[in-house]
């Protein structure tokens, strides 16, 4: 007879994974709606309006459309990789959340049992998140290559070059956070920022804001958001790496892209803005609400950026990566090290 507590722990783990995965699958629906509403209002339009009140049913209409569309595989495409690529883009976006702490401990009311609001506390959590979220790039590269189309190929090439260039800067900012918080575990990183607003890594002056800027710019480039969305530059490349995709396969790429947006927002909050810690002492607000509030603010910030800035040229993108971000992070690393001695 196996130990009963082991079974309960296992069941809890499965339930947590199930809840997180379900939320992540559903999340792109409101995000597409909000993104179009934000775009509309920034550009002095109404945004989606016709399907349902205030256009609220628009995401469902889109979903039905994407499911019903014909699934086209180009005749000369590399069939094996073409079909695999959307899944390779999507899977890492989910797997990342195994290490992300949404909160500390929480007691379920009535049955009085304590559960942790994270799936796993890894002692190399920050490395795990960076490594796994970097794997999503394979979907873009293989998708671009296997389409056998010049636009898609160039999109894939651009994304791989962009990824390599900006991965270095993002890793440096992760080193910075590790120096500030003295741990690789995301849980410990959040706990080290407890107390009030001034304990957050962002407010570790003067290096905190610089690390955050490096992280933000690098991550924007890695998840291919405007102003760094050159892999799907619709002005010159058709639709970039997913030019040849249709229906649900295209939807998988979009899903991965929205989840990457959420991941970057979550990581910004966890690494620099204290995770679930309140900025100052407010009674009766559960930590998870602080966490969600900060994440939502960041998601809005990224949408705001998207409809405000124009796209960079490719040489400008490379210049920013290699000639600005990397030297700045090296200098910042030395300063942080000296301050932490």
């Amino acid at each position: 007879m196996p130990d009963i507590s082991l079974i309960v722990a296992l069941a809890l783990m499965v339930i947590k994974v199930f809840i997180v995965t379900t939320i992540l699958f559903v999340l792109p629906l409101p995000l597409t709606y909000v993104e179009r509403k934000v775009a509309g209002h920034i550009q002095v339009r109404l945004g989606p309006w016709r399907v349902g009140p205030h256009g609220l049913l628009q995401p469902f209409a889109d979903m039905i459309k994407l499911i019903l569309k014909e699934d086209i595989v180009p005749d000369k495409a590399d069939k094996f990789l073409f079909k695999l690529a959307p899944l390779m883009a999507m899977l890492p976006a989910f797997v990342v959340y195994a290490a992300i702490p949404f909160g500390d401990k929480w007691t379920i009311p009535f049955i009085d049992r304590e559960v942790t609001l994270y799936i796993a506390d890894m002692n190399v959590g920050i490395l795990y998140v960076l490594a796994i979220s970097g794997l999503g790039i394979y979907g873009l590269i293989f998708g671009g290559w296997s389409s056998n189309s010049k636009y898609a190929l160039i999109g894939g090439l651009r994304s791989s070059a962009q990824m390599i260039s900006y991965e270095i800067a993002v890793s440096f900012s992760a080193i910075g956070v590790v120096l500030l918080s003295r741990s690789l575990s995301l849980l410990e990183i959040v706990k080290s920022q407890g107390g009030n607003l001034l304990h957050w890594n962002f407010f570790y002056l003067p290096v905190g804001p610089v690390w955050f800027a490096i992280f933000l710019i690098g991550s924007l480039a890695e998840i291919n958001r405007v102003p760094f969305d050159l892999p799907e530059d619709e002005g010159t490349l058709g639709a970039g790496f997913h030019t040849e995709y249709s229906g649900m396969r295209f939807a998988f790429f979009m899903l991965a892209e929205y989840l990457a947006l959420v991941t970057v927002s979550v990581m910004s909050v966890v690494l620099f803005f204290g995770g679930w810690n309140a900025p100052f002492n407010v009674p009766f607000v559960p930590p998870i609400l602080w966490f969600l509030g900060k994440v939502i603010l960041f998601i809005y910030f990224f949408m705001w950026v998207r409809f405000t800035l124009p796209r960079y040229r490719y040489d400008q993108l490379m210049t920013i990566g290699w000639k600005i971000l990397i030297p700045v992070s090296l200098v910042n690393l030395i300063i942080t090290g000296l301050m932490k001695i």
Partner: protein
Amino acid sequence: MEQIPFFIFAAIAVLSAIGVISVKNAVHGAFYLMITLLQVAAIFILLRSPFLAAVQVFIYVGAVMVLFLFAVMVLDIGKEELRETFNQQGVIAIPAVLVMLALIGYMIIGGKVLAPAGNLTDDVLIGNSTEVLGKELYTKYLFPFEVVSILLLIALVGAIVLVMKDRKR
């Protein structure tokens, strides 16, 4: 119990490694290599070394493989150019491989591949293997660590010099 996942990972790793050298298409080869490297990372986790596993995924799967793919796609290596993968070197290669396998087998049977774990018990490694690794690298193994760093630096400078020589003219 722990041997079951090990054999699964090892089997996938070996099969995809065979895939790397047997497929005609270079991009497919890169795909199989990626799978092999991921399995190796999984084996690192079984060996109580999450740091090495994360670094393996981060550096090899995340960066080096992307660079490989970039080169393969830019050079546009077609299926035809890879037809002659064997170069008639089987006469040398097969005995060399057999000798190496025999050596490895001899060492495993003789118990010579095992090193004493010392004070690195399971508890220490599961708790904070990164800290243990860092301390060992910067104290006990500082000299080899520095030698490797200088070697990498030389390789970096060398790569830049090679590129610059072409460009001068």
